[in-house]
């Protein structure tokens, strides 16, 4: 843990003023919180006093280990951004050190001002895994402006809260618990139900809201959609009916017209976003067996001027499903090679296998079904990169592949550790946001 403590310490020093406000919040949580988990009240006293006594000398590990109900702080970037990198740090460096916390943990996202929708969806897959497979009990503290905060900070956190509401983050959380309030700290019960109109991301046109975002919001296209049937008794497997309904919904809304008119993208190309790229990404989820959580979300990243489409699932990983085909294509058979294991296979090999899945005609299917199949990920890659000049990010089995510039180019590879099963596909399409019509 040492290498992660030092940079965290430096970051914390830089963030001292906002961190102090965060500490104040922690104190207030301690004072007002009733957390009847297992019948025990929250015990943050020792941990909080450690915070208050030693600001700027924070050793999260020491503090976390003192209290029995652990408060885990999700550190955003300096600008308050919570993206995939921040998520990886939070899950790997923070949460996973506390999976044995018997009385549960608090997951504090209260300082996050801007979300990457991909990180939001991938977070849900992670939390679902921690809860269901690891038995971790947790409550979440989501961002919200309070009167104690200075104006600009309060506005930013209110905007962050309205983003979660407008994007229907509660719908994603319902994959973990049908009653989302049970996942939130008690003071935030009802977080997702404040009355309209909300202050930010309004569903009615406002001058300060770009036309593209306005159109996506007003047509409910920005709302996160779940492809599982999360009914009574827990989530069910991803159903073709759910995927079909989602495809129908998006295609019927003619997203292409929005992109053509709002962003100046040529009409026929713009139509490919909904009719082709998004549809293939949704259909591709069916290629990941044993998925019980699958989510899709669309958002606009203002700072990079990109339209982001993300699909995540917790099914079998791409490398594991394609491994047998990979061996066959490379002149080897699974009888002679060890079985696929994400834990023992080197990251570079996993990345190679995952990349192989994006090649033309490579499919996990067998027999007659396999003939002339295996184009889903290829189409996604080619359109995202070559047609839309965007970027494709695939995360699976703790490796990340990034495709950009040309679909035929080999991807950038990096490790992206995650203990949970599943796959993430994130497509970023650059936009030239035109003036409103």
């Amino acid at each position, binding site marked *: 843990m040492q290498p992660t403590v030092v940079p965290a310490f430096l970051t914390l020093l830089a963030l001292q003023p906002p961190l102090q406000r965060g500490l104040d919040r922690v104190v207030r949580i301690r004072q007002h919180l009733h957390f009847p988990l297992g019948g025990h009240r929250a015990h943050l006293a020792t941990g909080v006093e450690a915070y208050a006594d030693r600001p700027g000398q924070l050793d999260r590990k020491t503090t976390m280990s003192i209290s029995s109900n652990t408060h885990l702080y999700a550190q955003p970037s300096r600008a308050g951004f919570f993206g995939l990198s921040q998520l990886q740090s939070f899950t790997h460096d923070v949460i996973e050190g506390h999976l044995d916390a018997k009385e549960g943990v608090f997951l504090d996202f209260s300082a996050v001002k801007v979300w990457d929708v991909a990180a939001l969806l991938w977070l849900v897959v992670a939390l679902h895994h921690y809860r269901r497979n690891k038995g971790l009990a947790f409550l979440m503290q989501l961002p919200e402006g309070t009167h104690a905060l200075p104006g600009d900070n309060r506005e930013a956190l209110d905007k962050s809260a309205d983003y979660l509401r407008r994007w229907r983050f509660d719908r994603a959380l319902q994959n973990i618990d049908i009653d989302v309030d049970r996942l939130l700290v008690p003071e935030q019960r009802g977080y997702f139900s404040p009355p309209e109109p909300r202050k930010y991301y309004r569903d009615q*046109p406002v001058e300060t809201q770009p036309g593209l975002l306005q159109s996506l919001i007003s047509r409910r296209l920005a709302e996160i959609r779940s492809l599982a049937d999360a009914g009574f008794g827990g989530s069910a497997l991803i159903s073709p009916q759910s*995927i079909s309904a989602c495809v*129908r919904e998006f295609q019927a809304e003619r997203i292409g017209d929005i992109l*053509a008119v*709002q962003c100046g993208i040529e009409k026929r190309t713009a*139509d490919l976003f909904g009719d082709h790229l998004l549809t293939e990404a949704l259909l591709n989820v069916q290629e990941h067996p044993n998925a019980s959580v699958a989510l899709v979300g669309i958002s606009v990243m203002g700072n990079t001027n990109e339209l982001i489409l993300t699909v995540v699932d917790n099914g079998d990983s791409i490398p594991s499903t394609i491994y047998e085909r990979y061996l066959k294509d490379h002149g080897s058979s699974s009888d002679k090679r060890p079985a696929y294991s994400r834990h023992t296979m080197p990251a570079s090999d996993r990345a190679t296998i995952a990349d192989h899945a994006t090649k033309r005609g490579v499919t996990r299917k067998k027999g007659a079904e396999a003939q002339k199949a295996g184009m889903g990920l290829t*189409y996604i890659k080619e359109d995202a990169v070559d047609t839309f000049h965007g970027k494709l990010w695939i995360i699976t089995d703790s490796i990340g592949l990034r495709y950009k510039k040309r679909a035929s180019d080999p991807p950038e590879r990096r490790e992206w550790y995650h203990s949970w099963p599943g796959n993430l596909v994130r497509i970023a399409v650059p936009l030239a946001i035109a003036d409103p019509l």
Partner: protein
Amino acid sequence: MVPQSPLQEVIVVDLDPGDSQFLIEFGFSPTQSTSWRPGERNEAGFESLLRSCGLASTALMSQRSFGAGLKRHALPEAYFADLANDLPIPAGPRAVVLNLMPFHLSATRMDKVAKGLFLLAKKSGFRPSDVLLILVRNLDWLLKSRVFTEIHSSAQLSCSVVAVDLRCYGSEFRPGKEPRAFEVQREEAIWPLLQLEGRRIYHSLIRETNSYIGHFALPHSHVRTHYDLAEFIRYDHVWEYLLGTFNRLLGGAERLLLLGVGMELRVIQQMGEQFKAVLEPRISMTFRNLSVDPAIEEDWSNQYEMAVVVTDIVNTGNTVKPWVEKLDSSNTAKKRVAVFAVACMQNSPTEIGGVTVSAALRIKRDFYPSRQECKLCLLEQPIVKVETVEDFRRVTPEQLTPFDFWEMVKDAQALARDALDPQGRPLTYRVDTARLVSRYGSWLANVIRRRFRDHWPNITPAAICTVRGEPGAMFADLVARAIGVRKVIGIDRSDLRRVTAAGGPPGADNPLSGSLTVLLVDDGINYGHTLRSLIRFCQAAGSVVLGALVLDSRLAESEKLPIRTEMGLSPLQSLYDWPARGRRL
């Protein structure tokens, strides 16, 4: 296009709607609207389509519906191979029109279609003299299809293929030749295929669109109904109808100022964007949503040939009037001004500020301009104050009120006199549930949804249990759709009678196996005997009864309690309660 040899026969092939369920499993998503299906479309339009593709023909035209029937296909390509093999082969050239418009597809789905039609089907199926005309929502699925591209480029294409999409893009693929792109005219290729008469479109609004019924107080009027226009304009035939009506209104204008105003901001924004996307570059259009940007330039008439105020539904016209007047006051170059609305009420003004209102539809209801003139106020119907569109979606706790119920019954002609109930007992009046559900299903679904949420919060039953056969089954299906339950289990009345304290009918399978929790649904309760039998049946089957939901009930509240007790005091909800049962109505 190079003309083909004279066609001997034209065969239009649709996929049987009964196959939709397993086509969904293959990733073929049926559209919500039925615009393109046999019986809903205009069959005579195929001649015009063929002509616009250079396939003029006086050949005999026939329509086939390909259905898998009892045969289950493991793969979609096998399905399409069978479709091709199933086609009759006349002696002379034929055109086969494969209608895929009712489906949202993708390139990978087209891979499977192409594989089935050209690689798996018997080679004699398509001959060089034949033409396969594929109607598809997006031509680029076919152009991007690796399988189809390979088939064409490797000369495995046994006939010419022409594909046309909803946007009027077309492509011709001939064996051994490069693909040739072309465009068709919407008026000649697409519109003739659809039923674009006002009557049909009105039917779609009233019968096929989600609706809300109540007593809505708008800023300038009171109204009885509201329709989900966002859903309405998504139907292909409706959208093309609106486009056609709007296009005719423009009368050849090429520089247009389009101003959107109204409560349904989403719909207005969508119409503006879609009009602009479809009509440009032929028409240079500036669309402005007045809710965002209320300014109208003083010299607009020097920049544009025409200004159109686009709105959702015109009642009094008071929302649109100020903008028409503003346009008029700055209309120095005396250009045309028009108002375009999706719909108006039957007593709405036909002119606003001297400008004719062009409404695509006229709804056969009145608006009430004031409380004093409002029939609903006189009848003391619960009022919903509407400030945003979301307010229309509110179902009040009192609904269905007696007025709601009996207005629906009257309008649907669903009242039978001196009828017998399913047990053969005489009733003075009986409601025909099938007619009611057929006419008002979407509105009833909203009421059901509200009632279910109120009394069964955060619960989804594993199944709905009802008595097999109409009319209860139809209502049960509606409830299932409204609350998102997939399984509806109908129990034979004869089996209900055979439940005893010892258990269910001996020797019978347990239809509720795997359904731990059930919601009982029936169209009505007269005496409660059927419902009690259902409760006992479900309990004998080992299921937990969450409660019961019925359309109407003739039981007094005191008579409901014993039934609820048998369900562990679970809710027994009826959308409408008849008055005193003693009158044996």
